[in-house]
C-alpha cells in the first residue's frame, strides 16, 4: 500500500486505494449474553455458599486484577491498530491469505511464536491480521502457535513451575501442531464456505 488512506468511515472509495476495512466492532452479541448469564449464575452460587463477603472478596480481587490488566489491553489494542495500518494489505493477503499454502501457515506460526506479550497482544493482533486479509487458516496457525510454542508464557510460567526439561520437551512435541491446526482449519473452512467471504469491499 503506497498511499495509506486516512481513516474514512464512508465505504464509497474507489477500489484502488482500498479504505481500511475497519475491524468489526460487535455490539453486545449472544456470546456476551451467555457469559453474563453464566457469571450471574456463578455469582449467585458463590453468594449462597459464602454469603455477601464471599461475593465481595472475589469482586475486590478481580477489580484489582482488572485495573492491572487495563494498560496492557490498551497496549494490545494500539499494537493491533498500528500493525493493521502499516501492513500492506495486498502483501498480507498474498502471504497469509487463503491461497498462501504451506508458506502462509509457516509464516503465521513464526509470527505467533515471536509475538511478545500475552493474550492482550495476541488476540488484537490476530484480529488485525484477519482484517487486513489473512485467512482463518493462517490466523489459526498464529493463535495456536502463540499459545503452544510462544516463549512468553513458557518463560514466565511453565519453566518455573513445570521445569525446563518438561517445558522444552512439550514445546518440541507441539512444534508441528500450529501448522496442522491451521491446515485443518483452512481445509474445513473452504468446504464450509466455498465462496470467499465479502469483507466490506471486493478484495
Amino acid at each position, binding site marked *: 500500500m503506497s498511499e495509506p488512506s486516512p481513516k474514512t468511515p464512508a465505504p464509497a472509495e474507489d477500489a484502488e486505494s482500498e479504505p481500511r476495512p475497519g475491524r468489526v466492532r460487535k455490539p453486545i452479541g449472544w456470546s456476551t449474553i451467555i457469559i453474563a448469564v453464566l457469571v450471574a449464575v456463578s455469582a449467585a452460587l458463590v453468594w449462597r455458599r459464602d454469603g455477601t463477603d464471599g461475593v465481595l472478596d472475589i469482586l475486590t480481587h478481580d477489580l484489582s486484577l482488572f485495573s492491572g490488566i487495563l494498560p496492557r489491553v490498551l497496549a494490545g489494542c494500539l499494537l493491533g491498530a498500528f500493525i493493521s495500518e502499516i501492513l500492506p494489505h495486498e502483501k498480507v493477503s498474498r502471504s497469509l491469505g487463503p491461497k498462501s499454502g504451506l508458506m502462509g501457515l509457516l509464516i503465521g506460526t513464526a509470527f505467533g511464536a515471536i509475538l511478545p506479550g500475552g493474550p492482550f497482544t495476541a*488476540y488484537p493482533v490476530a484480529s488485525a491480521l484477519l482484517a487486513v486479509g489473512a485467512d482463518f487458516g493462517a490466523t489459526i496457525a498464529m493463535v495456536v502457535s502463540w499459545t503452544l510454542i510462544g516463549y512468553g508464557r513458557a518463560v514466565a510460567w511453565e519453566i518455573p513451575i513445570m521445569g525446563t526439561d518438561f517445558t522444552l520437551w512439550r514445546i518440541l512435541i507441539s512444534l508441528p501442531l500450529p501448522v496442522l491446526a491451521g491446515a485443518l482449519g483452512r481445509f474445513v473452512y473452504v468446504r464450509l464456505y466455498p465462496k470467499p467471504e465479502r469483507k466490506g469491499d471486493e478484495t
Partner: protein
Amino acid sequence: MSAALLIDILLWGSVFGVGLIAFRRGPPVFKASLREGSMDFINIVPRIALGVIGSGYIAAIIPQEVITGWLGPDSGWLGIATAVVAGAATPGGPVIGFSIGTVALKSGGGVPQVVAYVVAWALFAFQRVILWEIPFMPARFVWFRCAASVPFPFVAAGIAMVIGKP
C-alpha cells in the same frame, strides 16, 4: 514481578516501534490508527470487565480439587480424553494450570496424559477463551479455531507416547 515487567517493556516497546513506523508514514496514518486503537480499547473494556470479574466467580464454583481428581492415574486414551476435558475446564490463570500439571506428574499421572492436559489447557482453557478470545475475535473465528484444535491434544499425547519421556 520481573517477568511481568519484562513483558510490559517488550509490549510497550513493540507498540512504540510500530507506532514510529506508522508515524513515518505520515501523521494522518498515525492519528487514524491511534484513534482506531483507542476506540477498540473503549469498546473492549466492558467485555474485559465482564470476563475478568465473571471468570473469578466461575472459577470459584469449579474447585481445583475437581480438576485434580480428573487427572488421576487413569492411563490410556480414556485418561487422555479426561485430561483434555480437565484442561479446558481448569479455572484460573497459568499458575493454576501448570501447578495442576506438576501435581499430576508427581502423583503418578502418565506423561502423555499430563501433556494432553497442558496442551488442552493452552488451547481451550475456558477462562482465556471467555476473557480474551471472544471479546477480540469474530465469534465465528473462535468456534472455528476451537473446533480445528480439538484433535491436537490427542496428537501431542500420541507423539509423547512414541518419543517417550522428557
